[in-house]
């Protein structure tokens, strides 16, 4: 490894400038540490997260147009690498996969059977382009799957093995409300925190290492100390995300308010629009609910169990021998919103919502969690 680029003594709090031309070298340096790169890429008219090889796989020059029930990719008039906000997927795709084998079982000759746990993930992933709300979502799922009395060993291994390159938002979608949820738009955490600056004159990243291993990777790439002007320009870019953010969710006393609204007639008004399609739960970066699927092969000798992500909007979700507990759409929407904004606090000491706005964008009928929370507040205030 050639020792390049440290023309100054880096410390964890000195931002550096990495030119866009050297971003590929940063990706390569991360790969050289043994990580598989996953990051944003354009597919099927959306920016999704998948394995990437190089800068060329990034959504260069693309942005996303979002509104309630609306998502379109649009060309930018520049060549920004991270010039979009968030797509339909989140990093739970890799930490809490939609379908995963838990174990397999083989019948023995004596009629018994052996159970073999699924091996832990061998690949260590580097997440390239994690937004502030997404970092918050990962921490939220950590509390569910890794920090309770029981731990999901796969999640823990994938999570602890991951290298995180966080990238600040420099614009906000109309569906964003991370500022209300106190999760963004500025990132704190990850291994490296980047701000992308694109102007007619220049294209660079302001890089702040957040951990020793982030620092170590940066050392292997050509970079230099940021000038005051370069730092100011990055701050101006970050400020744009704050000033563009229009949606708000009033969180004052919200858990208690939603608890008080359980008997409200408003749930039925939402249910009249809600299709129970489960889109909101699939795109939500904190939703973790699942089911299991037991299968056996044709010989009857080999059985497996898979875990599949599920949704509280499915009727079977609460099935007991007497039928489903939450039969009506109103009850299912109430459960989802109540869990996100109220009971999550009692369970995991935080909101279950990070303000990414995905559930608003991807709802086919445009149901908006911020509007519904406001309507419930009004309903409770009037009662």
């Amino acid at each position: 490894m050639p020792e390049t680029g440290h023309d100054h003594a880096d410390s964890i709090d000195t931002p550096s400038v990495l030119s866009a031309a050297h971003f590929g070298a940063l990706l390569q340096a991360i790969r050289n540490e043994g990580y598989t790169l996953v990051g944003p890429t354009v597919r099927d008219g959306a920016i999704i997260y998948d394995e990437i090889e190089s800068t060329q796989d990034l959504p260069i020059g693309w942005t996303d147009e979002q509104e309630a029930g609306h998502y379109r990719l649009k060309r930018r008039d520049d060549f920004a690498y991270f010039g979009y906000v968030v797509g339909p997927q989140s990093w739970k795709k890799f930490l809490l996969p939609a379908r995963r084998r838990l174990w397999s079982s083989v019948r023995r000759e004596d009629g018994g059977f052996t159970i073999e746990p699924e091996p832990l993930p061998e690949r260590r992933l580097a997440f390239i382009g994690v937004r502030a709300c997404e970092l918050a979502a990962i921490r939220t799922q950590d509390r569910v799957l890794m920090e309770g009395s029981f731990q999901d060993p796969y999640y823990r291994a994938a999570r602890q093995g991951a290298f995180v390159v966080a990238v600040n938002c420099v614009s906000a979608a109309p569906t964003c409300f991370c500022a209300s949820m106190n999760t963004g738009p500025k990132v704190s955490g990850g291994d490296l925190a980047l701000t992308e600056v694109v102007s007619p004159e220049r294209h660079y990243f302001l890089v702040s290492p957040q951990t020793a291993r982030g620092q170590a990777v940066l050392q292997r790439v050509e970079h230099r100390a940021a000038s005051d002007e370069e730092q100011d320009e990055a701050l101006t870019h970050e400020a744009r995300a704050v000033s563009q953010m229009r949606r708000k969710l009033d969180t004052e006393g919200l858990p208690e308010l939603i608890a008080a609204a359980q008997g409200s007639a408003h749930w039925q008004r939402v249910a009249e629009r809600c299709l129970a399609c489960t889109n909101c739960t699939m795109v939500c970066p904190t939703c973790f609910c699942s089911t299991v699927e037991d299968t056996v092969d044709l010989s009857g000798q080999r059985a497996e169990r898979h875990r599949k992500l599920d949704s509280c909007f499915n009727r079977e979700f609460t099935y007991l021998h007497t039928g489903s507990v939450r039969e009506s759409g109103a009850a299912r929407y109430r459960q989802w919103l109540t869990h996100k904004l109220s009971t999550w606090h009692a369970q995991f000491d935080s909101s279950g919502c990070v303000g990414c706005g995905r559930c608003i964008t991807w709802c086919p009928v445009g149901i908006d969690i911020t509007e519904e929370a406001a309507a419930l507040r009004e309903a409770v205030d009037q009662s």
Partner: protein
Amino acid sequence: MAVEGFVPQDGSDPMVPEPYRIVERRRETSHTVTLALSSAGEVPTRAFQPGQFSMLYAFGLGEVPISISGSTARRDRLEYTIRGVGAVSKALCETPVGAMLGVRGPFGTAWPVAGPENRDLLIVAGGIGLAPLRSVIYQVLERRSHFGNAFVLIGARTEADLLFRDEYPRWRAAGLDTRVTLDAASGSWKGSVGVVTSLFPNVEVRPNRTVAMLCGPEVMMRFAAQALRDKGLSPHDIYVSMERNMKCAVGFCGRCQYGADFICRDGPVLPFGRLEDRLVLQEV
């Protein structure tokens, strides 16, 4: 309240069952079977507390939560009384002695059997709800002198649905006032007819020294708890055992949420006082 059940200390996956073998199988009613299981793996048969449950796996078919119905004194076995209602529970009921099942657990909270001396006990069971309460009854039988009055009130649909009927004489002889009522009775039945709360008027309930444990259909527990409140019992001295759809039993699958409680982890046994507001709502 919370009782530590099985928690893997070595970071291994709590979703992976342990092998157990059926050592005894007894038919209780036409739809109900009691299975006694002993560990067939490296880890000895796990200890439990009354009220806890396990996830029982039938090879290739699936897994269901089943309460433990046996005695905590028998460290060599775990007993489960299973009503065959779905594909998995029916298969479990049909599994013969010597066959292997996968077991995870025990999980969840326990009935508050330990507590101040000389408390009165009121055990109220509807149908299969007697199963997790039998573990309480066994503990009380061992330490009968530590309790004051002790009632076991049992409701069943018909005479043929009565669980553990051959044990009632022994319970009565040991000083557990065991009473039975049926929803529907044939001509030969000499006992009470009516829902389980119809037994309450003839039971002396002494508030502030009675703890009540209720297990049965949710509607039965709701009415029974309300009737006991009317008799002056504090909602915090009434315990119920809740049932919800469950796929993991360790707080991962999210299905068993009942308000802020995960029934698998914060329950199944919960004080009525904590649930009162939720039990009056539909479809929680």
